[in-house]
């Protein structure tokens, strides 16, 4: 008997994979040679499995700012902002984010995960109801469990189902908080933000959008799916992360809601954890400046996304419903997906293996993502490798 016995089922499933010589958790990058290339087991690999959408992790301006801050302010803050103080960089980053989004208020967190935990669990209280998209990220589900509100799921990307559920709540006291994502991380499909915003407004509810994968990626200015849909004013709270398009770590929330700063005194995942290190803040500031001033990054990303999606589609693969930087290949069974993943790695292409129940349907996925740093030649090479392995394993052309 062990306290860990309850995980025997999960251990068993993992053992079955590793017995086939497949263990995504064992992948170690011994070196990184560019934003989209690294070394695994002595082999050079092309990385199509990150969230480094704009390829900014090696941007010289980002690195320089980080190094300067590291020297000037030290390696860490060693505490939380409420107990141990705010550094100048924290405040500056909040100001810049508010400016970038054209919002009155901004607040930063130590991760995107904590940004969701903090905002969602706090905004909705005991007498309120949270309505979340059924395909929400784990951080949104965990935020719901952390708070005291009643939680209802609506069908993925289905404004009509959301409307029906809001109608059932008619006459019930309490606020209604609706939570969506800009781009969904598994299939790369985006939320119908305009339609959801209209339903939200009609019900007098509050809308929070997690633009984790769409910030820096969608919209004319990179402000995300709400900007692309032209309904930013209808989104009351935008949450996002610095760990994807900005290439660092940390999270944020921006809003125009009056009295926003009270959240600093009530959000426990903001209050009781150490603040972001100065170097991370400085890198994030530099990366934010890059996305604010260089639209060519987004254009290159969009072109690469289209090239890769169209190429896989032409080869006959089953993909997600929309072109986006996340391109997921849907496969019929777990063993095929696992073998495919392994063969890709052996051929020098690293992607993400996503298995149910972490996937939105019962299908396993090879989740890939392109970045602005990939060259057309790299995209084409990956397409060739996918087509070869897909044919060999019978995933296409059968």
């Amino acid at each position, binding site marked *: 008997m062990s306290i860990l016995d309850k995980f025997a089922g999960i251990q068993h499933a993992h053992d079955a994979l590793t017995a086939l010589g497949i263990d995504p958790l064992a992948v170690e990058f011994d070196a990184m040679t560019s934003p989209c290339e690294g070394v695994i087991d002595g082999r050079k690999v092309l990385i199509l499995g990150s969230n480094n959408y704009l390829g900014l992790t090696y941007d010289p301006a980002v690195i320089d700012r980080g190094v300067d801050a590291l020297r000037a302010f030290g390696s860490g803050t060693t505490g939380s902002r409420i107990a141990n103080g705010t550094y100048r960089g924290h405040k500056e980053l909040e100001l810049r984010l508010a400016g970038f989004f054209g919002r009155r208020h901004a607040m930063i967190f130590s991760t995107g995960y904590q940004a969701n935990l903090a905002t969602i669990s706090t905004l909705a209280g005991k007498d309120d*109801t949270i309505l979340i998209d*059924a395909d929400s990220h784990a951080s949104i589900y965990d935020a*719901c469990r952390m708070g005291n509100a*009643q*939680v*209802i*799921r609506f*069908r993925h990307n289905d404004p009509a189902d959301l409307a029906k*559920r809001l109608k*059932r*709540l008619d006459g019930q006291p309490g606020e209604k908080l609706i939570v969506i994502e800009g781009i969904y991380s598994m299939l790369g499909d985006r939320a119908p933000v305009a339609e959801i915003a209209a339903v939200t407004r009609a019900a007098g509810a509050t809308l929070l959008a997690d633009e984790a994968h769409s910030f820096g990626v969608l919209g004319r200015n990179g402000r995300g799916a709400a900007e692309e849909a032209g309904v930013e004013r209808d989104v009351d709270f935008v949450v996002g992360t610095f760990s994807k398009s900005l290439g660092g770590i940390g999270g944020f929330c921006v809003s125009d809601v009056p009295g926003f700063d009270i959240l600093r005194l009530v959000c426990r995942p903001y209050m009781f954890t150490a603040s972001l290190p100065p170097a991370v803040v400085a890198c994030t500031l530099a990366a934010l400046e890059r996305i604010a001033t260089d639209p060519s990054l987004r254009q290159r990303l969009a072109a690469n996304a289209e090239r890769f999606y169209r190429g896989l589609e032409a080869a006959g693969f089953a993909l997600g419903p929309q072109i986006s930087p996340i391109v997921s290949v849907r496969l019929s069974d777990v063993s095929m997906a696992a073998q495919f993943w392994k063969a890709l790695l052996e051929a020098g292409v690293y992607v993400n293996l996503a298995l*149910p*129940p972490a996937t939105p*349907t*019962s299908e396993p996925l090879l989740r890939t993502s392109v970045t602005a740093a990939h060259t057309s030649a790299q995209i084409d090479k990956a397409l060739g490798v996918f087509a070869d392995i897909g044919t060999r394993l019978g995933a296409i052309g059968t």
Partner: protein
Amino acid sequence: MLSEQDIVEVIVTHLRERLPPDTAIGPQSTIMGDLGLDSLAVMNFVMWLEENFDISVPMDRLIEVETVADLARVLHSLGAQKAS
């Protein structure tokens, strides 16, 4: 309003159409154990029930559900209406 018994019948009929023909399904069948539904199948099944009975089932109410009878009790307490 439907009785718990009516709701059990709707659940059993629905599952009978979807599970292998030799699956024994009754009020005491456990949904994830005896009937073998995984978390995704449970979610889709609950979405179908919500639609059918015109209710929303808050997530915390599912914690107490193990058997078909438990599920019927929760749906009943939420005011499950006749299928439209």
